[in-house]
């Protein structure tokens, strides 16, 4: 009797094997996907976003400095700068408040701020720019009293 059972049992072993391998494969894929999507990818996304926001702000600050210095007399000038439309797939905002230039992003980790070095004759900076279009830097005024505005409209 026992021998008969064993012989009938033999057919089960490939079934068990395939089930086992499929199970392990599925678990492995699931584990790796979880690890990548849950841990590795967001870390990289954040790192890339931080780097991008820093570079964007540095570029903007450099351009604003360049646009506002080195001119004599009465000035009306408009400069357009192309900046990334989004950081981590989300729009952001640049705010100029006197000498402070702030990058505001819905993700707080991407927020950055810096100091813009205007020439002596620049009395004030202001304006807000929302990402998407070109950053327009507007410099206007006499040699003694010049203002810098940033915005979307030329």
């Amino acid at each position, binding site marked *: 009797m026992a021998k008969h059972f064993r012989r009938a049992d033999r057919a089960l072993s490939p079934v068990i094997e395939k089930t086992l391998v499929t199970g392990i494969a599925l678990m492995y894929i699931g584990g790796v996907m979880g690890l990548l999507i849950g841990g590795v990818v967001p870390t990289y996304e954040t790192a890339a976003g931080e780097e991008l926001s*820093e570079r964007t702000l540095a570029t903007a600050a450099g351009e604003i400095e360049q646009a506002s210095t080195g001119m004599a007399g009465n000035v009306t000038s408009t400069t357009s700068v192309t900046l990334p439309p989004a950081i981590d797939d989300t729009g952001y905002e640049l705010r100029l408040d006197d000498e402070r230039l702030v990058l505001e992003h819905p993700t707080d980790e991407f927020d950055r701020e810096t100091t813009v070095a205007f020439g002596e004759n620049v009395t004030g900076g202001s304006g807000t720019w929302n990402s998407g279009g070109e950053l327009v830097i507007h410099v206007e005024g006499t040699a003694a009293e010049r203002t810098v505005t940033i915005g979307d409209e030329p």
Partner: protein
Amino acid sequence: MRGQIELPAFAIAVLLLTFTLVLGITAANTAFSNAERSALERQTAVSVSDQLVGEASPVTARENVLNASAIDELESVLEGDEIVVPDSAAIEVRLGDEVIAERGSISPASASTIERLVLVEDRSVETVEPMVTDAHAMTIPRRSYNTTVTIADEPTGSVHTVRANDEVLLANDDGLTGTFSLATSPQETTRIQFEMIGYLDAGDVTLQYEAPATRKATLTVIVDD
């Protein structure tokens, strides 16, 4: 475990896959850390160096030319508000190998460095006492600043006109005495001519000007945020 020969093969496959994954992530990590720059820090360094060598800078004679006598004051300039430096940043400025100003402490590993080639101008006051005769001309070099002429009051003769490149700068029919500054252009070589009556001894007319000597140097701005 009889008949389950596929399992070891599968285990090896999984192992290889894991190995590839780890390799991929390591490569991505390296790429990321290589691309990492402190863009803001660099921007600050560029901006500070721009301001230092700009025309409006308190330490330059003209654009890209540092005034040698003003370099010592750079430390106090950094403290003041003539040059905008973010409060959080440590900064060091070098001319050649010499540190000429610093604020805060820099750790070389994380700092951003900007180097610029500049001229350093040293002005020395030159005094010449020409032997002046009528229509006598003498030449002062280009880039000479603050030229003054001193004419002594002598009974033997007097200068009544001083010209620079044939342009009348000073004139008095009764004779010029005293010290006058001459509005000469530093852009060109200037011939100074004296028109006079009688004669003057050497030393009766003194010409003074600031002659610049420039040398090249590397201005290094290091910023650590």
